[in-house]
């Protein structure tokens, strides 16, 4: 830990400052949570089981049918694993931003603003919920099984797309979390709207795109680019036709979509923060 008290205003140093603060705060909560080890293990395990329930639902469906929208069980499991793992990572890292509205309403947001570290890092790391690690484990388990079970000729680009999807997916979800948090500056009870896009989004992506109407697919491809989390790249990996007629290179655009989402979310966050008016006292 250097004694670099220079708190520059360049974007780069703000990001490193933010990450450092995030790790400090999250680290403290993890240490605090670890003091009750048994309780920690139980809650992670409980979380794992709970988030596994929706996969059990998919399994039950496949006990009645052989395919869903033309996709086999391992293929749907592939979608499911990608969506849940990517979302799980984001929910673990940024899920706490959900309570921002409450903090704005009760005025405790002010206290974050007088500390010498970026506010977003403080909001995101607050009460770091390590128990949500359960969802990541569960998603990764399903994904792991699906990778073996799907009938795919694994070429280098296809194999590379899997980690690219996970990272881009997590970033896209992260952008939605941050945008949702920014929206809470305007409407303090907007957490439910945010949940509709985050939790709703991950549930949508667990099912093949062929199940949904074209308008919806267009919406999540061009407007809110959730399709780049898994639908588009996964369709390519599995050799399944995508409902929309798009050129193949679009498959590789997930990182670009993630970057654009991130930039937009950053602008929204800054705008929201600037409009903050504090409470009466």
């Amino acid at each position: 830990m250097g004694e670099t008290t220079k708190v520059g205003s360049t974007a780069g140093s703000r990001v490193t400052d933010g990450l450092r603060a995030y790790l400090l705060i999250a680290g403290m909560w993890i240490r605090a949570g670890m003091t009750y080890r048994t309780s920690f293990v139980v809650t992670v395990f409980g979380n794992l089981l709970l988030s596994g329930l929706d996969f059990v639902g998919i399994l039950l469906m496949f006990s009645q049918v052989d395919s869903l929208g033309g996709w086999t069980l391992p293929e749907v499991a592939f979608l499911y694993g990608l969506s849940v793992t990517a979302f799980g990572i984001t929910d673990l890292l940024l899920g706490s931003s959900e309570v921002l509205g409450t903090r704005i309403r009760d005025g405790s947001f002010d206290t974050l603003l007088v500390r010498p570290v970026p506010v977003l890092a403080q909001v995101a790391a607050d009460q770091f919920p390590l128990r949500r690690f359960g969802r990541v484990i569960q998603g990764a388990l399903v994904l792991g099984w699906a990778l073996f079970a799907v009938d795919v000729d694994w070429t280098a680009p296809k194999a590379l797309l899997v980690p690219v999807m996970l990272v881009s997916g997590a970033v896209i979800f992260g952008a939605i979390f941050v945008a949702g948090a920014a929206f809470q500056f305007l409407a303090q009870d907007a957490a439910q709207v945010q949940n509709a896009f985050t939790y709703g989004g991950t549930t949508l992506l667990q099912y093949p795109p062929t199940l949904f109407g074209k308008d919806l697919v267009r919406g999540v491809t061009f407007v809110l680019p959730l399709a780049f989390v898994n639908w588009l790249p996964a369709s390519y990996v599995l050799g399944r036709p995508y409902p929309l007629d798009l050129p193949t290179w679009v498959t590789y655009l997930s990182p670009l979509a993630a970057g654009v989402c991130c930039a937009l979310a950053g602008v929204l966050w800054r705008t929201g923060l600037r409009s903050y008016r504090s409470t009466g006292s």
Partner: protein
Amino acid sequence: MADGVTDGVTGVGAGGVTGGFIELDRVEKVFDVRKKTGFLRRERHQVRAVDSISFSVARGEMVGYIGPNGAGKSTTIKMLTGILTPSGGRLRVAGIDPSRERTRLAHRIGVVFGQRTTLWWDLPLIDSYKLMHRMYRIPDGRYRENLDRLVELLDLGALLDVPVRQLSLGQRMRGDIAAALLHDPEVLYLDEPTIGLDVVSKANVREFLREVNTERGTTVLLTTHDLQDIEQLCSRVMVIDHGRMMYDGPLTGLHEIGDSERTLVVDLERELPPIEVESARVVKVEGPRQWLAFPASASAAPLVARIAAEYPLVDLSVREPDIEAVISRMYAEKATS
């Protein structure tokens, strides 16, 4: 007369806006308020929470900032910390524009909000301090030295391992004050630091603040409802109401300007007709207890002596005028002159 109040009696702050550690030059904060007037109709109007305020505080000064509820005290403090951006005017703290360089300024200021804690609610007190150590990048030696000193002075030893939410209000306030001072801030803002505290805790907090101010030379700006805070701590007081600076100078001057009255409460042996005495008038009688108002600038001693000589006196107490009373008198003064 309206201008006379602010200009004529301006004491220490009269030096203008140059060279101060905290400088405000015609600072304004305007809020847009939308009121629902119908199903979808909304009326917009503007509220001037702070209306062209200028003052300058020198390094090491200890200044009281008072005014009734909604006067604009907290809004000013929030602009001084960078939480809120001024709508107009110029504002500098240690040469820094707070809202533009909030995080840079944060290293140099300490803030205590009486109404809410800056500590991490669910964690033991010591965890908050450890985190601040890293967050503010306080050198290890300095941190240990400061922590030891603060723990001793604020009597926090037994509380360090207690989760913040389990602390009493007074304990939490002490914990918050320590947290605000760990990184050796050059200026300390206190927003109602004694609100809700019992007499002993109040005395402890005041004693400690005085020490910080004299020993470390920390500049202190405190808002309060409690005139006693000001009397015991501050050589200078600023009064704000409806977002405007009403007075800036020593506390004694405030009493003169407000032509305020103190109240002498006397308990007599039995019920008697209202006491007749020069330089005081009875404002209320309730059984054997009587309330007498007399000018705040006059001494209570001769009055007490005279009453004791002529009436069967059992007990007495003197009540200082509260801020609301002083300010309402300042208004009355302005209206009549």
